Every structure is written in C-alpha cells, then in structure tokens.
C-alpha cells in the first residue's frame, strides 16, 4: 500500500485576544490507499480543523500535506479546487446533498464536475447506489430519503469518481445507532474494496470498530494511535485503558 495522504509537522494556529491558540499542533501521520482511519477526540481537540486542512479548505500555519503526492502548500486556489474535485471525496455531517437533485443526480454530479458524465457513469452510479441498498430510491429527492439513506447517497457521491482520499466529517452524527453502524460499515467496506484512503472524523468511539487505525487528538496534538485490532476494539467498546 502507498501513502495516499501524508501529513508532516502540521501546525494551525489562530490569534485570539492577543494569545496564540494552536488548533493543530505539530501533527504528523500517513494514510495508505485501502486504509480506513478514524480521527477521534473531544470537542475542541482539533479534529475538524485537521479535516479542513486535509480537504484543502484551510491553509496550515506551517507543515506540509501531500495528497496523492501533491503538496497542498504549493497549490494555487484554482489548483486546490481541482484537487478537491478530482482527488477528494466528501461526506458531511448534515446538508450533505444538493436538495433539488435526485439521489442518482447527486452522485452523478461528481462525474459532471469531473467531465465524466456519460452512459457508463450513469450505470456506475446506479450500481453503486444499488450496492448501498438504494436501487429503489434513485429518483427520489433528498427530502424524500431518511437520514441514513441520505448518508449512503453521500458515500456513493464521495466514491463515484475514484478519489485518492475520502473524508467523512461526523457521518453518523444525525443517525440512530443502528443506521450509524450500517453506514460506517458500508463506508469501510467500500473504502477497502476500492482501495481508497479513508479518514473519518467522529466523536462516537463505537464507530471505530470498522476502521484500521484510530488517531486520537487532544488540544491540537496527536496523543495516541490505536493500531492493533485489540486496541481498537477496546476503544470502540469502551474498555480501553487511558
């Protein structure tokens, strides 16, 4: 497996009332293709700031981020937009889908953005949605779908254009427990099958049972990495020793 995402000595600081606040403080890690990683930590630990930087939405104060070998710091704004479109797949906590496009149109929109909307693309989007259990919901608008179904459409949209990295921001926050497990399990399966690098920000440690590695952040720092299956299961089931 090669590193689809590499973070080196990343720092993001803000000035607040004359003091410097470190939202991300000297963090380094790698995520390889085919690997699904969870980024966990309490509120204010820097998870979402980290995700924003990985998504090329926020510039770091210092350090480097490489996506598919490309250094984000060297890119213009336009190149960052292109990178987000071509190399990154997203799912968000809420307001995920474009409300006036059907489930299939939402998925195909990524192909349109990448100039790859054709008959094959349409078939692939339908197949992907069918794999996610939405074959009878292709032509439904987001408002006609449940929260879990919307998240599954978002997962399909995040993967349809074969991005190098898939980022998920609290994908289970608005779901009940059963649907949350289903969504993350499906997400993990697709990340593995499609050989993508997946990073999920979550505050729900139970969801970590489906990931390959857990990065724990606190006060902007990467404080612990859970790598073995046992460690991860202990964390996910609440039996971890801090």
């Amino acid at each position, binding site marked *: 497996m090669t590193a689809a995402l590499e973070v080196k000595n990343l720092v993001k600081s803000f000035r607040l009332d004359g003091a410097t606040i470190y939202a991300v403080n000297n963090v380094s890690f790698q995520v390889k293709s085919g690997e699904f990683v969870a980024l966990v930590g309490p509120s204010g630990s820097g998870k*979402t700031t980290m*995700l924003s930087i990985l998504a090329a939405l926020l510039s770091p104060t210092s350090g480097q981020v490489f996506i598919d070998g490309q250094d984000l710091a060297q890119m213009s704004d336009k190149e960052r937009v292109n990178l987000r479109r071509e190399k990154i797949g997203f799912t968000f906590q809420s*307001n995920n889908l*474009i409300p006036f496009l059907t489930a299939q149109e939402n998925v195909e929109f990524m192909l349109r953005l990448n100039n790859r909307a054709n008959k094959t693309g349409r078939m692939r989007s339908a197949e992907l949605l069918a794999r996610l259990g939405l074959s009878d919901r292709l032509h439904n608008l987001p408002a006609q779908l449940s929260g879990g179904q919307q998240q599954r459409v978002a997962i399909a949209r995040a993967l349809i254009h074969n991005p190098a990295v898939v980022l998920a921001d609290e994908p289970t926050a608005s779901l009940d427990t059963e649907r949350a497990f289903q969504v993350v399990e499906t997400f993990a399966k697709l990340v593995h099958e499609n050989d993508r690098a997946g990073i999920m920000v979550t505050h729900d440690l139970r969801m970590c049972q489906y990931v390959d590695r857990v990065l724990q952040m606190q006060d902007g720092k990467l404080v612990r990495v859970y790598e073995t299956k046992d460690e991860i299961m202990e964390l996910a089931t609440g039996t971890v020793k801090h």
Partner: protein
Amino acid sequence: MKNVFLAFYLAIKEVLRNKGRFLLVSLVIALITLLVLFIAALGEGLANGNRQYVANLDADLIVFLEKSDFQISASRLDTNTIRSVRRVDGVADAGPIYTSSAEIVSLDEPLKVSLLSAEPGRPGMPPLIEGRDFRGGEARETVIDRNVALRSNIKIGDKIIIRSTQGVDDKFFTLEVVGLVDGQSYFFQPTIFVPASTWEKVRPQSEADLASNTAYPNIIAVKLTDPAQIDVVKQRLLDSVSRIEVADIPTTINNIPGYSAQQGTVQTQGFFTLLIGVMVIGGFFQIQILQKVPQIGVLKAIGSSNGVVGWSAVIQIVVVTAFGVAVGGGLTSLFSLFLPPTIPFVFNGVRSVAAVILLLLIGPLGGLVSIIYAVRIEPLKALRLG
C-alpha cells in the same frame, strides 16, 4: 464554458424542482412588468395626445410671435409674416397654422376637439388618408382626424355641428366632412381642420375679436430646403423677419403647456417602479442565497468553482426574470385590448423595448448582491467552520 454548462444544469434543475417558489417570483416580476409597461404606454399615450400634431408636422422650424416663449396659444402672428418667411433663403415652404378648440354637438355625446386651420398642400396640413381637401374661402367643409371618426362613427359626406362661444352667446355651425387625416391629436383632443376664413368665423372668440374678420395664424410651420442648415436658416429668419422667435420641433413640443411636467411625472413613476422592482427582486434572491449557504458550501467543498456557483445564480435570475417579463408583457397586451379608447394608451416601439430591457436588467441588478455573496461563501461552511 464547462462552468457555464454545469451552472446551467444546476440552475435549471433547481428552478424546475421548485416551480412554485420561482413561479411566485416570476409573478412578482410579471406584475412589476405590467405596471412599468402600463406607465410607459400611458406616458406615451399622454405625450401623443399632447404633441402628436406638432410631432408629425412636415416642417423643420416653427415661427412664433416674439416673446411668446414658444407657446403656441400665446403666439399670434401678423398676416404679412407668412410672406416674409417664405422669402427667406433656405425656406422651401411655409404654412400658417391657426389653433383653437370647439365642441361637436351633433353626436350622442358632445366631443371636444381641437379646431385647427392650415393651408392644404402646405406645411401644417397633414396628408389625407381618405377623401379630399376642403375648398378655400369660407367653405363650410372640414377634414377630421380619424380618431374623431372612430369615436363618433362619422363618415365622409356627413355633416357635423360644432358649438362655439362667441362673445357671450353659444353659436352653432354646420360643417361637411370631406376628408380624413390620421393620428393628429393636439392638446389631448382629436383635431378637425377647416379653411382659415371658416376658422375665423367659427372659432370661439371674445366680443372684441368679433369685430375683425381677419384670421391671424398662431404659428408658421417652415420646411427647409436643406434640413442640415437648420441653425443657419433659423438665424436668417430671425434677422430678416421682424417680431418673431423661431424654434425647432422638439423645443416646440417641450413648450406645449404641461408637456414637460407631465412627462417628468410619468418618467419618475416609471423609474421608481423599476427601483422598487430591483429592491424586491434583490431582497428575494438575497433571502434565497442566505437559505442556501450550507448547500453552496457543500458545492464548493466538493470541487465546484466560484464560476459554477456565480453563473448558476446569474442564469437562475435571468431565466426567472425573462419568464416574468414575458408573462408581464403578455398580460399588458391582453389588458390593453379591453381599455376604452378614451384612455391614452400607446405602445411605442422604442419606449417599450427600453422598458423591457430595463425590466430584464432588474433581476440581475437586484440579484447582484446575492450573486457576489454566493461567490464569497466559504466552502468551510460545509464543515461548520466557516
């Protein structure tokens, strides 16, 4: 170009899937269009009713009595002036025009008309569309405006009776209709033309005026050999004819009593209607963009450029505005069919096209702030950090 196609796709999908909301906006635009076109057509109708005869004159200059401030009713020229004017180098022809008013009483409803006189074949006498010119002298013959004929069902060969107050008595005169002219309203009234001597006999006049049988023209319409030499000939006229002042046609129209004030009022109404339209449409699109901030954030986060977001907003506004303007234009045409002829309602090509162009611009102008706002939305909004 790809951005525009993508933006078009997004814009049209949103409009089609939210028909009710966008139809409502289009309806508001249609009503604003209806109001603006109505005001424009009424303005044109009023202007026409006031100036039509003067505007259609086959003349380049108008000669007034000096110090009459280019007001036709205040000008009364000496009978010799016409000969002096015709002798000036550069003048191709000149015709005296006599103005007054009267009332046709031989109809079911009395009709007030402008009673004019001009010499057939000379500047001042409009071309006939039917019938023949009246004879000279004191012939009791008249050529009438088609609007008079349409309103009262008068035909050539019919006799009409006009009432005219002379001194302290109402006098009645019978005139035979011998010809028709078209579109010759003056001072908001349709016109009837009679020979100068007849005009002098039948026009309303004071006790003092009754003693004289000489008709004095109010103005003289002057046609030039070379209209490009208008300023030169105007100066020559001023130099060689005594006790006159000279104006071109636009100046004459602007000095018709009340004309400028009336047009200014109508134009101000139109301007404020457009301004209110811009603000209403702008407010609507701004509210819509504010509601869509997270959605636009997601669009940008997944790789849509500012171009796609901006163009999408522009296309949506243009489509909704164009639809509203088209519906409004249709409604205006429909309503105009049911208006009585007494309401001065005239579609003028240039004025209507200008109003439509302005109306098409109110959407983009009103939505400008929202378009700029949409383009500036940070994609971080999608991640709750913006």
